[in-house]
Structures are given as structure tokens and as C-alpha cells.
């Protein structure tokens, strides 16, 4: 089964064709927590691989690499979105299906830009940070 419909795939191909720098999807597989009730019955790791390999097929600038239990991943499956193959601290833990697939695709497009897309005052605020911050955003697929 394709990961995207025809129209969506065409759009994603266009976005990926416009990437200013390559983006690697580094997929981390490992022991998975038992998901909550109501979650679809599927192999999340295998589905993550299928999803990321499928996205990598939509643009020359997007590649996919898979490792078992690499360091630095607290949960599995997960995918690190890496501009120029470098860890920029952008990660998706769990399978981004449904609406959340858009977050992964959007993350790839953002990582592929050569300039930040935040407002100048936002960039200035980030420059003022004097310590590291870890942002976790809990989401659910819809």
C-alpha cells in the first residue's frame, strides 16, 4: 500500500525537489513499549521503516538509514531528521501516521532549507538562551 495518495505524493515530490541541502532520515529500531488501548495493531518498527524508505524514494535529497538500538534514542521506533546527515536535535518518536505524517514531511522540508524560517525576533530570542533546552511535544495521530 502506498504511503501517500497520488496528489499528496506529487506535492511531496515537489517539496523534496526544492531542498537546498540533503536530509537523512535516521531510523532507530529497538524494544517497543506496549501501545495504549485503541492503537492500531501493527508492527510499528516495520511500518516506520516502510514509511521512511518510502519518503526517501520521493526525492534524491532524502535518504534513509536504519540502525538497531543506536545511542541517543530513548524510545523506539524513532526517526531523527538530519540535515546534511548531522544530528540537529530533531526527532520523531513513534510512528507518524495519519495527520502526523505531515509533521514528518514538514520536518524534512524544514531541515532541507539553508536558512531558518523563524521570524527575526524569534531567532533573536533563541540566541539569548544561555542553556540547553529539551522540547518534547506529545502528539496523537488523527
Amino acid at each position, binding site marked *: 500500500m502506498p504511503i501517500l495518495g497520488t496528489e499528496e505524493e506529487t506535492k511531496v515530490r515537489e517539496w523534496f525537489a526544492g531542498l537546498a541541502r540533503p536530509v537523512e532520515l535516521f531510523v532507530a529500531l529497538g524494544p517497543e513499549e506496549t501501545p495504549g488501548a485503541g492503537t492500531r495493531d501493527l508492527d510499528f518498527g516495520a511500518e516506520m521503516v516502510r514509511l521512511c524508505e518510502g519518503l526517501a524514494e520521493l526525492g534524491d535529497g532524502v535518504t534513509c538509514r536504519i540502525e538497531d538500538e543506536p545511542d541517543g534514542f530513548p524510545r523506539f521506533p524513532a526517526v531523527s531528521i538530519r540535515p546534511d546527515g548531522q544530528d540537529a536535535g530533531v526527532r520523531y518518536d513513534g510512528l507518524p501516521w495519519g495527520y502526523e505524517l505531515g509533521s514528518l514531511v514538514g520536518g524534512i522540508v*524544514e531541515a532541507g532549507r539553508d536558512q531558518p524560517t523563524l521570524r527575526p*525576533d524569534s531567532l533573536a530570542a533563541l540566541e539569548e538562551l544561555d542553556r540547553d533546552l529539551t522540547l518534547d511535544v506529545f502528539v496523537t495521530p488523527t
Partner: protein
Amino acid sequence: MLLAFRCALASERVTAAAIEANEFPQLSQELGVWAVPRVVVDGEPRWDGSVPEPEFLRRLVAAA
């Protein structure tokens, strides 16, 4: 979610992870995730819901 990713891409001081709440119910329960998006900064739940970029940055900086 994209706003968090943008912050991480723009600053070496920030890392951002989307966490699929249903797939990690234990962690979600520990952090009291009942509404999404729930934003957690350095392990502390900070706010629920999407906010515009200026407000997102204001809250992020306030949490630092």
C-alpha cells in the same frame, strides 16, 4: 510541532522531539498527557495546545 522543529534547527541549544502519545502510554501517563499537543520542556509539562510563534517563543524563553 513544526514550530518546535524549527526552533531546534535554528538553535544548537534546542532539541525537539515529537512523541506519539498513544505509542508511549506510560510516559504519557507520567506527564499527564490528556490533551495534545502537550509541550514539555526539560521534562516539565508547560502548556497544552498550539500557540502562535511569538507566544511559543515567549513561553520557551520563560521556561529557560
